[in-house]
């Protein structure tokens, strides 16, 4: 089981959970999924550290790589940063009024804006990729202790990393697999 996960510390004792999203939703795990998995990893003392998100277009795995780091993240960014709807249920998103929520959504917006497919017939692909970039940004720059892996065309799961660049004064943001 460990072989495909070259970017993560997986062993034979690792127990994983999995879930899927409905067809109209983003294929990537949500911020709520990140909090849920991190808290599960802590409460099970590391027995559960992985969450598969299975979708028709892409498969992802969230892996808790550092429970202590997640605890620090949780202390600095408690669950109150997750958005609830009018019925008090979590929507899956970060609260758009929290600074972390605005920061992550601003990255998603900038990534979306920089994508030439945005606003065209391929708009949804741009939106999905922008969501992935913002998710990887959240995981990496906020020190969550959690890594996102994505299955490539050869069936290998590879850790995603976030990158940004400025071309002609315009910031671009993207996520791509580590080689």
């Amino acid at each position, binding site marked *: 089981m460990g072989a495909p996960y070259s970017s993560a510390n997986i062993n034979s004792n690792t127990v994983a959970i999995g879930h899927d999203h409905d067809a109209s939703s983003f294929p990537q795990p949500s911020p709520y999924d990140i909090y849920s998995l991190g808290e599960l990893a802590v409460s099970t003392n590391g027995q559960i550290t992985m969450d598969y998100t299975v979708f028709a277009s892409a498969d992802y795995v969230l892996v808790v790589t550092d429970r202590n780091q997640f605890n620090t993240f949780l202390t600095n960014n408690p669950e109150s940063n997750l958005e609830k709807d009018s019925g008090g249920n979590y929507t899956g998103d970060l609260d*758009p009024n929290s600074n972390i929520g605005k920061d992550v959504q601003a990255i998603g917006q900038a990534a979306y804006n920089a994508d030439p497919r*945005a606003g065209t017939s391929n708009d949804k692909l741009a939106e*999905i990729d922008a969501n992935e970039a913002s998710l990887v940004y959240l995981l990496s720059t906020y020190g969550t202790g959690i890594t996102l892996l994505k299955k490539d065309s050869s069936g290998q799961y590879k850790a995603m990393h976030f990158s940004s660049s400025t071309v002609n004064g315009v910031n671009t943001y993207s996520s791509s697999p580590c080689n």
Partner: protein
Amino acid sequence: MIISIIFVKNVLAESSYRRDLPLMTLNQDTAKYLQENILAHKERFQNRSLNNILNELKLPVKSYIVSFGRKVGTIKGVSLIFENFHNASEKLHQHKSVHSLFVEFETPVSSAAAARLLKVSNGNWLTGESELYGPLIIKNITGPHGK
């Protein structure tokens, strides 16, 4: 007698709500201004168009962040921000506070339509934004801590 007391209370509430704050005060205490003049009276703005808030605000909206929600193809609302997008995003990257109001629309907006505006404005609030979002009906308004 009871009717008179209720009447007086309503007049006081209306008077307090409509009191214009000096611009200096607005700049110094944006959070307090937004709380007292918009969020504390949000029922006045719900089920009405965004233009009502835009006309009421003494602070000009300078940029915004769209909220995609969890459904691909639509945005459910926008965070209205009172400084330009570049400055706001730089502050947020440094984990500094940026004042905002989050407005959720009754009917989600096509993300493709939002994208076409973003390509022009880069997240700054321009005429196109007022034309697209201004007439939209507000479902809910929230500020810090979801109030």
